[in-house]
């Protein structure tokens, strides 16, 4: 099965206004840079974006915020982006904050056919407001529901033509779960290889989850907090 698509723009051709997207990455690490540029170029609007963060003002999802393409964000932390802050305060943008572990687990549940799960995270906090709770084995839990998306846009390191993916270091983050929870998952990678090159033991995302694969170009891989030690 050959899943390679020629360009980022072609790979997102059926994403339309109002769709729900998952976008991989943690901060600016492991984000689908090329697919985000394509979303901006195509100008699709009213998007609901599920992503741990919202990028920075001029990179990552921030590029979509600039152009007012996003209606709602579902994230765990959006503190790096003051454009975001202004848009929320002005009512242009809706935000649903989800604890990071619950966000990751809800995405996993969406991909794994789990109808809901009980988590101890957020018990007794405003996160529990309006949610069912249950005492199990003497401990209180909150019912959390799965997240799915029309499209998942993810970033891998190396992919083979059948869609098998490996990631690099902490750029793995949310990408593997999101790969499973999109009706259509589009992956961009830094390198595409023939099948048989990736070791079957090391594949993190099996090809079954990837419908379309593109080779990303001109990766900027911006660093948010360059921190070094004195030698």
């Amino acid at each position: 099965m050959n899943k390679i698509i020629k360009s980022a723009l072609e790979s997102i051709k059926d994403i339309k206004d109002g769709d729900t997207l998952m976008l991989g990455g943690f901060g600016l690490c492991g984000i689908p840079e090329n697919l985000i540029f394509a979303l901006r170029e195509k100008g699709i609007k009213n998007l609901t974006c599920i992503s741990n963060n919202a990028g920075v003002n001029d990179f990552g999802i921030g590029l979509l915020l600039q152009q007012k393409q996003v209606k709602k964000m579902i994230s765990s932390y959006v503190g790096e982006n003051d454009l975001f802050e202004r848009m929320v305060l002005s009512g242009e943008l809706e935000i649903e904050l989800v604890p990071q572990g619950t966000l990751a687990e809800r995405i996993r549940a969406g991909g794994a056919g789990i109808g809901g799960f009980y988590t101890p995270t957020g018990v007794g906090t405003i996160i529990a407001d309006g949610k069912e709770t249950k005492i199990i084995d003497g401990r209180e839990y909150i019912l959390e529901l799965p997240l799915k998306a029309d499209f998942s846009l993810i970033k891998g390191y190396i992919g083979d033509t059948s869609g098998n993916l490996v990631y690099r270091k902490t750029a793995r983050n949310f990408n593997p779960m999101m790969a499973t929870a999109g009706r259509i998952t589009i992956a961009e990678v830094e390198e595409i290889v023939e099948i048989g090159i990736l070791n079957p033991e090391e594949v993190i995302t099996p090809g079954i989850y990837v419908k379309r694969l593109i080779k990303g170009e001109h990766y900027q891989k911006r660093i948010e907090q360059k921190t070094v030690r004195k030698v």
Partner: protein
Amino acid sequence: MTLLTREQMAQRIARELEDGFYVNLGIGIPTLVANYIPENISIVLQSENGLLGIGPFPIDGQEDADLINAGKQTITTIPEASFFSNADSFAMIRGGHIDLTVLGALEVDQEGNLANWMIPGKMVKGMGGAMDLVAGTKRVIVCMQHKNKAGESKILKKCSLPLTGVKCVNKIVTDMAVLEFTKEGLKLLEKAPGITVEEIKNSTEADLIIEGEIPDMIF
């Protein structure tokens, strides 16, 4: 009255580490704890974005955009490191496999409740992984200034801000004291050198259990 520096607080918290511990350090002062790990013990630091085995910060020029911690800082790895997804990372955290987490706080109360993510009226940045960490980690240490900028106690009878977790804090290390949550209540364990018990009492809104002579902190 000489308050502890950030470094001294980190140094004191480092004494809570035990050999073999797997530890998650929050952003800010908690991150500094890594600089004071006793030489005779071996601990492994977890980063909730998907790494077990954080190493020192990289040498300038060797930073890698694909290798960051939960504070988005560039880092390195130790030889026994492993990478995993955020789902696997929080399975590890929620499942009670992390021995200790150290987090900052806006408020702690005498029930062990913690508020550290949201000030109503101010822009909400999000809780990140804090709610998961306090719900899942075996031992939670809060590290913060004893009083806020207005000089008011941050250790209260009851938290006024939206909570991060309920009855989740085990110990508080401030620039004035070390306090522990016991069955009986919040107990004063140690005081900063040069600070009196009276000064701590006056700086603390919460009810404190104070028994016998309170020793100075050792670093």
